[in-house]
């Protein structure tokens, strides 16, 4: 690796870090309660809505936010744009945390966690199950992410020999790191095909796998831009505008492709009027697409892509719009009928907040102690 990276150094136990720690503790308390009294004691999930925010946010949205590593790897390694490699390590790190914590949250979401390893036992596996593919794929990808990130840790502990050995085979992990998300991110969409008539036609579509794949990439890039700008502001570092504005030039095309498929698909099936009926589902449909359209309109003009402020707004719109599409597919668009209702309970929310806080803590700790961010040239 040619580029130099540095650990930022500085105090780890800052105020934001402690606030996050407090949230994690509250989350842990409710997780304890869940293991003693059952999922129903902390969650509003029910037989009509068997999946709540732990799946819809922690896994389905969370892993998309963690597609930063995937999106950047795609550009750097497949499209051979070496100039973006300063973005690789921070992106990989957020991916590693995002996926790992999604994996952790699955453990307390599944009811019979103590035999969760059944999914890896060949005599139980159901090759027809989309869930099987997703679980196996995400499980493997978490390992791959840690292997991809390992050079940074080996660098920190000055394990040069091990690092040299890993560098010789790292291309296999990089390749897997591109293949696996392509598989499971699209399959997260395929998963909801099975919901059939329970999923509103505004979301149920044969294009679910393709749309989920595109949103994973869109959200991934948006997360890179968002993370890079936030890191620059909070750690008082120069913004990587030359890279960010170049990456964002791809976005209008991706967003355009997505919106054309998304709207035309609903339109051709004849369900577009549902979007304007004033109900929650219709409004959410409009909102998610308007957010993505806003990002498209901002980023379509080259001048806008030079402005950190507009770039930040566009990345927020993409993060929100893409996440909403996924969240709506799993919760808002899902209606099992016969009067079931779902809104997350406070303990349920706090478990998810705890996951997010743990992610922020890990990020703060790592950028300060592990060489992740690119080294600044002395002025």
């Amino acid at each position, binding site marked *: 690796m040619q580029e130099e990276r540095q650990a930022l150094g500085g105090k780890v136990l800052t105020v934001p870090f402690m606030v996050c720690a407090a949230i994690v503790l509250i989350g842990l308390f409710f997780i304890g309660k869940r293991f003693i009294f059952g999922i129903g004691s902390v969650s509003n999930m029910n037989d009509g809505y068997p999946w709540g925010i732990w799946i819809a946010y922690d896994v389905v949205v969370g892993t998309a936010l963690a597609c930063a590593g995937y999106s950047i790897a795609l550009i750097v390694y497949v499209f051979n744009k070496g100039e973006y490699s300063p973005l690789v390590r921070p992106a990989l790190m957020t991916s590693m945390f995002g996926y790992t914590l999604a994996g952790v949250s699955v453990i307390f979401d599944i009811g019979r966690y103590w035999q969760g390893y*059944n999914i890896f036992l060949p005599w139980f596996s159901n090759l027809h199950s989309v869930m099987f593919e997703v679980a196996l794929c995400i499980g493997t990808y978490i390992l791959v992410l840690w292997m991809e990130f390992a050079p940074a840790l080996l660098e920190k502990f000055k394990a040069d020999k091990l690092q040299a050995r890993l560098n010789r085979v790292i291309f296999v992990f990089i390749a897997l790191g591109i293949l696996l998300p392509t598989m499971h991110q699209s399959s997260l969409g395929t998963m909801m095909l099975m919901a059939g008539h329970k999923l509103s036609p505004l979301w149920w579509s044969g294009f679910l796998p393709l749309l989920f794949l595109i949103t994973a990439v869109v959200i991934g890039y948006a997360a890179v831009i968002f993370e890079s700008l936030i890191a620059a502001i909070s750690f008082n570092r120069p913004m990587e505008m030359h890279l960010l504005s170049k990456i964002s030039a791809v976005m209008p095309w991706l967003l355009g492709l997505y919106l054309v498929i998304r709207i035309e698909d609903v339109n051709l099936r004849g369900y577009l009027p549902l979007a304007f009926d004033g109900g929650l589902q219709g409004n959410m449909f409009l909102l998610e697409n308007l957010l993505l359209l806003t990002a498209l309109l901002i980023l379509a003009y080259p001048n806008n892509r030079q402005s950190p402020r507009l770039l930040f707004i566009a990345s927020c719109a993409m993060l929100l719009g893409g996440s909403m599409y996924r969240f709506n597919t799993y919760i808002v668009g899902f209606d099992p009928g016969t009067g079931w209702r779902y809104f997350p309970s406070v303990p349920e929310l706090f478990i998810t907040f705890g996951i997010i806080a743990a992610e922020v803590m890990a990020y703060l700790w790592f950028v300060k102690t592990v060489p992740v961010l690119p080294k600044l040239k002395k002025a």
Partner: protein
Amino acid sequence: MKIRRRDFLKGAAAGGLLLAADQSPAQARRSRKELPPNAVGILYDSTLCIGCKVCEYACKQANNKPVEHANPKEPMWDDPQDLSAKTLNVIKRYGVDGPKDSLAGFAFIKRHCMHCLDPACVSACPVSALVKNPDNGVVTYNKKACIGCRYCQVACPYNIPKFEWNSPFPEIVKCQMCAHLLAKGGISACCAACPTGASLFGPVEKLRTEAKRRLGMSPGEYYDFPVANIDSTEVQQHRAGDYVKHVYGAQELGGSQVLYLAGVPFASLGLPDLPDDSYVALADGIQYAIYKGMVYPIVVLGGLIYIIRNREEKKE
């Protein structure tokens, strides 16, 4: 032969587009599933049901399920309002209030697992905890395999599988057509208990014929109706109901082994209007098109390794 990077990418992009095109629902759908050779099922005739709920009681006895109180503050008797982790079989009442000679009246419906020919739950389950018996077609649950992911609940078009939300060691609960009684040569407890023959057990082929026979009856005339088991000799005489000319479950989502007859529209009994093709066939078809023999993923992985390795070598 040397493949150039750019050519490979072009090929991969074209492949991706083809794949996307392949995903158009009509093409990706795989074919329908046939009835298993010795398929057994239940024919429930709403016009014969008197709402006595003895089937609910028999079901709980046969499956060791506790009583359930709709209002826990005033517990009286077992009165489940719907299926739950404690209730595998429930009788529900649909009513229209009004003056006597209008359309006012009521009808009953019995809800439990439909034992679909192409069950979404079986296809969804990642660990084969739900399986369809290849011989008699009964869909059973194995708690030793289940990880509690609840995808079966999301997938089931009839909202049948229930989860023990308030247990630290929860299980999925659903009607298994009394598989333990079938194994001993018996029949489902609900059918054995039904006093009027509204719940009728039997081979699905015979139940289909019986359903057709009933649709051909003239309303108000007396006919023979078998009780408990279609193969039994016990018969009762009833006036034929004014049937809706449809056997629910014969076609819905590829068909099921539980069939319904009713005198009021099925939608008002809480049975959704469903297409003939199952959602499973579509999801399976798409999944199969992409992952058949893992050919596409392996080819893509090979291509990626080739590209990335080449690039890393050039750098050195």
